[in-house]
Protein backbone atom coordinates (compact mmCIF):
# COMPACT_ATOMS: atom_id res chain seq x y z
CA UNK A 1 0.00 0.00 0.00
CA UNK A 2 1.52 3.31 -1.07
CA UNK A 3 -1.16 5.73 0.09
CA UNK A 4 -2.75 6.57 3.42
CA UNK A 5 -5.95 8.61 3.67
CA UNK A 6 -7.41 9.14 7.07
CA UNK A 7 -9.94 11.28 8.95
CA UNK A 8 -9.63 11.28 12.72
CA UNK A 9 -10.05 13.49 15.78
CA UNK A 10 -6.27 13.68 16.20
CA UNK A 11 -3.51 13.58 13.59
CA UNK A 12 0.23 14.21 13.67
CA UNK A 13 2.95 15.09 11.19
CA UNK A 14 4.90 12.10 12.47
CA UNK A 15 2.17 9.63 11.42
CA UNK A 16 2.28 10.95 7.87
CA UNK A 17 6.08 11.08 7.75
CA UNK A 18 6.45 7.53 9.11
CA UNK A 19 4.09 6.27 6.40
CA UNK A 20 5.78 7.89 3.39
CA UNK A 21 9.48 7.55 4.17
CA UNK A 22 11.09 4.84 2.04
CA UNK A 23 14.60 4.05 0.80
CA UNK A 24 13.71 4.75 -2.85
CA UNK A 25 12.46 8.27 -2.06
CA UNK A 26 15.08 10.99 -1.78
CA UNK A 27 12.58 13.81 -1.38
CA UNK A 28 9.86 14.13 1.22
CA UNK A 29 7.67 17.24 1.38
CA UNK A 30 5.23 17.85 4.22
CA UNK A 31 2.42 20.37 4.45
CA UNK A 32 0.94 20.93 7.86
CA UNK A 33 -2.13 23.12 8.19
CA UNK A 34 -2.79 24.59 11.63
CA UNK A 35 -5.55 26.68 13.18
CA UNK A 36 -4.70 30.37 12.79
CA UNK A 37 -5.62 32.62 15.70
CA UNK A 38 -6.93 35.50 13.61
CA UNK A 39 -9.12 35.95 10.50
CA UNK A 40 -9.68 39.39 8.98
CA UNK A 41 -8.47 41.12 12.15
CA UNK A 42 -10.83 39.07 14.33
CA UNK A 43 -9.57 36.77 17.06
CA UNK A 44 -10.42 33.11 16.35
CA UNK A 45 -11.21 31.12 19.49
CA UNK A 46 -11.64 27.69 17.87
CA UNK A 47 -12.55 25.84 14.68
CA UNK A 48 -15.07 23.09 14.17
CA UNK A 49 -14.75 20.67 11.25
CA UNK A 50 -17.60 18.56 9.89
CA UNK A 51 -16.97 15.81 7.33
CA UNK A 52 -19.09 13.75 4.97
CA UNK A 53 -16.61 11.08 5.87
CA UNK A 54 -17.19 8.27 3.36
CA UNK A 55 -17.18 10.68 0.42
CA UNK A 56 -14.33 12.75 1.85
CA UNK A 57 -12.17 9.62 2.06
CA UNK A 58 -12.99 8.77 -1.56
CA UNK A 59 -12.09 12.27 -2.74
CA UNK A 60 -8.85 12.19 -0.73
CA UNK A 61 -8.06 8.85 -2.34
CA UNK A 62 -8.64 10.33 -5.82
CA UNK A 63 -6.10 13.05 -5.01
CA UNK A 64 -3.60 10.47 -3.76
CA UNK A 65 -4.10 8.31 -6.86
CA UNK A 66 -3.53 11.28 -9.18
CA UNK A 67 -0.22 12.16 -7.53
CA UNK A 68 0.98 8.56 -7.80
CA UNK A 69 -0.27 7.87 -11.33
CA UNK A 70 0.46 11.26 -12.94
CA UNK A 71 2.96 13.19 -10.84
CA UNK A 72 5.80 10.79 -10.10
CA UNK A 73 4.97 10.28 -6.44
CA UNK A 74 5.86 6.98 -4.76
CA UNK A 75 4.06 7.37 -1.45
CA UNK A 76 1.56 9.87 -0.04
CA UNK A 77 -0.33 10.38 3.20
CA UNK A 78 -3.33 12.72 3.49
CA UNK A 79 -4.69 13.19 7.01
CA UNK A 80 -7.51 15.50 8.10
CA UNK A 81 -9.16 16.02 11.43
CA UNK A 82 -12.83 16.16 12.33
CA UNK A 83 -14.30 17.93 15.35
CA UNK A 84 -13.00 20.91 17.32
CA UNK A 85 -9.50 22.36 17.26
CA UNK A 86 -7.86 25.32 19.02
CA UNK A 87 -5.43 27.87 17.55
CA UNK A 88 -2.07 26.27 16.86
CA UNK A 89 -3.44 22.75 16.58
CA UNK A 90 -2.95 20.72 13.40
CA UNK A 91 -5.99 20.10 11.19
CA UNK A 92 -4.49 18.72 7.99
CA UNK A 93 -1.22 16.98 7.12
CA UNK A 94 -0.03 15.95 3.69
CA UNK A 95 3.25 14.10 3.26
CA UNK A 96 4.57 13.22 -0.17
CA UNK A 97 7.61 11.10 -1.02
CA UNK A 98 9.22 10.91 -4.44
CA UNK A 99 12.63 9.93 -5.79
CA UNK A 100 13.48 13.63 -6.27
CA UNK A 101 12.25 16.78 -4.56
CA UNK A 102 10.63 18.59 -7.51
CA UNK A 103 7.87 16.03 -7.92
CA UNK A 104 7.29 15.97 -4.18
CA UNK A 105 6.92 19.77 -3.93
CA UNK A 106 4.55 19.89 -6.92
CA UNK A 107 2.40 17.00 -5.71
CA UNK A 108 2.15 18.33 -2.16
CA UNK A 109 0.90 21.69 -3.42
CA UNK A 110 -1.52 19.97 -5.82
CA UNK A 111 -2.84 17.79 -3.01
CA UNK A 112 -3.62 20.58 -0.53
CA UNK A 113 -5.02 22.89 -3.24
CA UNK A 114 -7.30 20.13 -4.57
CA UNK A 115 -8.35 19.03 -1.08
CA UNK A 116 -9.56 22.55 -0.38
CA UNK A 117 -11.62 22.53 -3.60
CA UNK A 118 -13.14 19.05 -3.72
CA UNK A 119 -13.14 17.21 -0.40
CA UNK A 120 -16.47 17.51 1.44
CA UNK A 121 -15.24 18.94 4.72
CA UNK A 122 -16.63 22.12 6.27
CA UNK A 123 -15.00 24.50 8.70
CA UNK A 124 -16.81 26.75 11.14
CA UNK A 125 -14.85 29.60 12.69
CA UNK A 126 -15.72 30.71 16.19
CA UNK A 127 -15.03 34.28 17.26
CA UNK A 128 -15.57 36.00 20.60
CA UNK A 129 -18.84 37.41 19.26
CA UNK A 130 -20.18 34.71 16.96
CA UNK A 131 -19.46 31.98 14.45
CA UNK A 132 -19.46 31.50 10.68
CA UNK A 133 -19.20 28.66 8.18
CA UNK A 134 -16.07 29.53 6.18
CA UNK A 135 -16.50 30.45 2.48
CA UNK A 136 -20.21 29.60 2.47
CA UNK A 137 -21.32 32.94 1.00
CA UNK A 138 -19.92 34.93 -1.94
Amino acid at each position, binding site marked *: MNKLVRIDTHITVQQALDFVEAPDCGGVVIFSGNVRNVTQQKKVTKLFFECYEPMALLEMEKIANHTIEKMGVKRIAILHITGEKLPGETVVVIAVAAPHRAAAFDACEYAIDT*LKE*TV*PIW*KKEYFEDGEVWV*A*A*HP
Partner: protein
Amino acid sequence: MRVLLFGIAKDIAGKPVITVDGVNTVAELKSYLYKTYPRLEQLRSLMIAVNKTYAGDGQVLQASDEVAVIPPVSGG
Protein backbone atom coordinates in the same frame (compact mmCIF):
# COMPACT_ATOMS: atom_id res chain seq x y z
CA MET B 1 -35.76 9.64 -0.96
CA ARG B 2 -33.51 10.51 1.97
CA VAL B 3 -31.20 13.45 1.42
CA LEU B 4 -28.20 14.14 3.68
CA LEU B 5 -27.28 17.71 4.56
CA PHE B 6 -23.97 19.08 5.80
CA GLY B 7 -22.40 22.29 7.08
CA ILE B 8 -24.40 25.44 6.51
CA ALA B 9 -27.00 23.51 4.47
CA LYS B 10 -27.78 21.45 7.55
CA ASP B 11 -28.13 24.62 9.62
CA ILE B 12 -30.46 26.19 7.02
CA ALA B 13 -32.70 23.12 6.85
CA GLY B 14 -32.50 22.68 10.62
CA LYS B 15 -31.81 18.95 10.35
CA PRO B 16 -29.18 16.56 8.99
CA VAL B 17 -31.56 14.44 6.88
CA ILE B 18 -34.67 15.36 4.92
CA THR B 19 -37.06 13.24 2.88
CA VAL B 20 -37.78 14.43 -0.66
CA ASP B 21 -40.31 12.81 -2.98
CA GLY B 22 -41.31 13.49 -6.55
CA VAL B 23 -37.92 14.55 -7.91
CA ASN B 24 -36.33 12.59 -10.74
CA THR B 25 -33.10 14.43 -11.44
CA VAL B 26 -30.43 16.44 -9.64
CA ALA B 27 -31.82 19.62 -11.25
CA GLU B 28 -35.29 18.88 -9.90
CA LEU B 29 -33.86 18.21 -6.46
CA LYS B 30 -32.02 21.54 -6.52
CA SER B 31 -35.24 23.35 -7.54
CA TYR B 32 -37.05 21.69 -4.67
CA LEU B 33 -34.30 22.65 -2.22
CA TYR B 34 -34.22 26.29 -3.37
CA LYS B 35 -38.01 26.54 -3.11
CA THR B 36 -38.15 24.90 0.31
CA TYR B 37 -35.05 26.55 1.77
CA PRO B 38 -34.54 29.86 -0.08
CA ARG B 39 -31.39 30.69 1.91
CA LEU B 40 -29.60 27.89 0.06
CA GLU B 41 -29.67 30.08 -3.05
CA GLN B 42 -27.52 32.69 -1.32
CA LEU B 43 -24.61 30.27 -0.97
CA ARG B 44 -21.51 30.56 -3.14
CA SER B 45 -22.29 27.15 -4.65
CA LEU B 46 -24.43 24.12 -4.03
CA MET B 47 -23.41 20.69 -5.27
CA ILE B 48 -25.27 17.41 -5.10
CA ALA B 49 -23.44 14.14 -4.54
CA VAL B 50 -25.01 10.86 -5.61
CA ASN B 51 -23.51 7.72 -4.11
CA LYS B 52 -20.56 9.75 -2.81
CA THR B 53 -19.68 11.27 -6.20
CA TYR B 54 -20.37 14.82 -7.43
CA ALA B 55 -23.32 14.71 -9.84
CA GLY B 56 -24.33 16.96 -12.72
CA ASP B 57 -27.78 18.54 -13.03
CA GLY B 58 -28.95 15.95 -15.56
CA GLN B 59 -28.22 12.90 -13.46
CA VAL B 60 -31.26 10.74 -12.80
CA LEU B 61 -31.96 9.87 -9.18
CA GLN B 62 -33.02 6.42 -7.98
CA ALA B 63 -34.80 5.82 -4.69
CA SER B 64 -31.90 3.67 -3.53
CA ASP B 65 -29.25 6.36 -4.17
CA GLU B 66 -27.34 7.96 -1.32
CA VAL B 67 -27.95 11.64 -2.02
CA ALA B 68 -26.16 14.49 -0.24
CA VAL B 69 -26.28 18.27 -0.38
CA ILE B 70 -22.77 19.74 -0.52
CA PRO B 71 -22.49 23.45 0.31
CA PRO B 72 -19.17 25.24 -0.43
CA VAL B 73 -16.40 23.09 1.06
CA SER B 74 -13.76 24.62 3.34
CA GLY B 75 -11.47 21.87 4.55
CA GLY B 76 -7.76 22.26 5.16
